[in-house]
């Protein structure tokens, strides 16, 4: 039997649970689940991905193909951690143009350096 194999030792393992009422058992179930999920959701709170950033640009009025190119360019340059939407909006506000105009320039290969966070 390898380390990942195990006989059904439920009869032994269940002993500590024996004294729990059903409500207590349910409480134990959900508190263990919360313990497992906490680090997962914390990672999500503090991280982003190209798909998340593309979804932000979709919401800001870019097509899927445009969002892919713009986010790809930012990811390549190591800027994604600032947020694709934030980079576009900050630039638009700085130069007094629309978000869409900033994006279209990037798609034409222009204005990338000015975007640097």
């Amino acid at each position, binding site marked *: 039997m*390898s380390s*990942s*194999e*195990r006989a*059904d*030792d*439920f009869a032994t*393992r*269940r002993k500590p*649970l024996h004294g729990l009422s*059903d409500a207590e*058992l*349910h409480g134990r*179930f*959900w508190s*263990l*689940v*919360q*313990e*497992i*999920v906490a*680090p*997962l*959701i914390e*990672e*999500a*709170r*503090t*991280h*982003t*991905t*190209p*798909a*998340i*950033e*593309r*979804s*932000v640009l*979709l*919401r*800001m*009025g870019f*097509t*899927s*193909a445009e*969002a*892919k190119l713009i986010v790809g360019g930012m*990811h390549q340059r190591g800027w994604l*951690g*600032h*947020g*694709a*939407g*934030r980079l576009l*909006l900050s630039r*638009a*506000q700085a130069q007094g143009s*629309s*978000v869409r105009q900033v994006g279209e320039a990037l798609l034409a290969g222009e204005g990338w350096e000015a975007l640097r*966070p």
Partner: protein
Amino acid sequence: MKLTPNEKLNILEVLRNLAAYRPRRRGWTWRSGPARQQVGPFMYENASPALAQSVPLPSAHWFGDIDPQCDFVITTEIASGRFEDDLRRMRMAAWHGADHLMVIRTTGQSHIDGLIEGTPEGVGGIPITRKQVRATRKALDAIEDEVGRPINFHSYVSGLAGPEIAVLFAEEGVNGAHQDPQYNVLYRGINMHRSFVDAAEAKRIMAQAGILQLDGAHNANATAKEAWKVTPELFVQHAINTEYSRRAGMPAELIALSTVPPTAPPAPKLRLDLPYMVALRDLFAGYRMRAQQNTRYIEADTGEATVTHVLDTLLSRLTSADIQSTITPDEGRNIPWHYNNVAGVNTARQTLMGLDGMMQLVALREDGYLPAMARELKERAVLFLEDVLAQGGYYAAVAAGMFVDSGYFPERHGDGIVRDPAGGDGADTVVPREPDYGAPVCSHFGDNAYDGQAGKACAAYGGCSLCNPERIRYVDEVDEEDTVARRLERPLAEQQAGLLRPEVERHGDGIVCVTLFVPAEPQLAEAAALEMARRMGLAEPTVISRRMMHPAEGSVFEVRGRLEAAIRIDQLVLPPPSEPIADAEIEAWVRPRNIAVVAGTVGEDEHSVGMHEVLDIKHGGIEKYGFRCQNLGTSVPIERLLDTAERTGARVILISTIVTHSAVHEQNMRRLAALARQRGLRAGLVLIAGGTQVTDALARACGLDAGFGRGTTGRDVGSFIVRALRER
């Protein structure tokens, strides 16, 4: 766009001006209204409002054509690969009671890092694109108006583009979606960090668009060798996704657990499945249940599949469900055919109406085996969770192969799915958010520089697409070769030319299925069945179901093949439609004439119901028009009918002939005509036959004046008699 029942769905109309289309609502709709209501002759306890238009169950004609609707939402899953064909299938399913239409995605879409656009053809499902989603929602708006009930449109928020698909669904009014990061990890080999980080964003978007979420735990059921042994793990998978969804901002009422009774007969299904279902509902009180039917043990025999699905549905009613999802009975042998979607929906509809009010009659035991087993399953699940933490958390547990192990936990067989937390599709694409990270949009999860500001995060540039739909940029087509317009060329040309072909999946695919019993040993019989199908002119015949009746006496086969010929509509000869005469007109003509009618069920045949339907005043039969009817009963000799007619001066003889073996119904009809002629009575009599296998053409061929089949009313028969007697 408006549909009319006698006109086909116009796909060109669906596609017209899609760029300007906006969905009429967002979010999920449950069936509502009083559960207790009178429908026709019956009081129901688990009902929902009736449809404006529908096709009732076949037996409904005995009960005044009622079509009561149950309180569960009913799902059907659609996967033809061409959305334009899916729409027609959706319309048919809606007419049979489906209000949750789930569109399967094309193979491989999970691995595409971004959205697909246009209308390319898919395999085993459609590529989910904005145009296809928009066209589908637009068609469903028209279909829901036609049937008079909101229809939920559903697909999948998974794979590498989860957050983008969630945005697309929110924008386009998709009502439900699967979202479960564990599915990506276990079954799609997508990097686990990427999958979970993406999922939080997708779930937040879905939550704020009111999209109902289904999880993916049922897949463990479908993949495990012994599905009932993974039940402890199913609680764990449901719980991880549920808790993660709550933490991402999803309210309990939008979280539905996708759950399947794990076994099928000959396993002792209720004993194995019921404790699991009870334990699940205990642990997850407050969440919705999407009860799916079993696919794990489905075979090619559609009858067998249907029985399992009836039992699954019985288990839903015994416990609880908010959605009853259906599996087509042919899923074990091919990609579902459209009429089998309807068959699956009808299995649920028929079963649930039959089980209406069941919990007034029975209760689940609160002592003995059932609660003891439910408790055991919960304890096994708690031990599983403890082990996940002991392994070092979720990612480490997946890396250690804890999930989808075929052992009955804590038993382990060492055959679980193993994934590397650093590997998989999309590895190394998860980026830490910098302190100034920002996303100026709504429905965003996690740290965000714009969260602190007053007003919406998207206010600075006039609103994101979720607040301001004008911002959505619609893409029509990308690849001009692979489009719906190209695919429609042949069907539209054939429609124009008035050609008709049979189909099961796509427009005019020509596929038919024939059933053959061959009286020989299985191997020989199968070869013969294929040859017989070839002789019928079917191209590429394939056996899709074989069932031995006896090793030597024979087997029954279902053979699929393609009929190459198209029928020209203008060359078909249709019998003239005969509109029944108005009740008052029939009565006005009949009553003063005092017309005698002699009737009886002939031969050795004890069926009496059909004749009562046609004669008796209480069933709406012809007595009400003033016919003087004499029913001689069942197993009546033909001679006796003629004797009585002669004695009473009857103008009409009605026979009912139900039994058909050795074509005895034909013999009865011929004998009536022949004896009437021999006795010189034929010219003075209107001779009519009725029965389940009787057609007008058959009756006339046998020498009678008319024949009536299933669904005949007294008014149909009365109208015919009046017309026939007027002519004489």
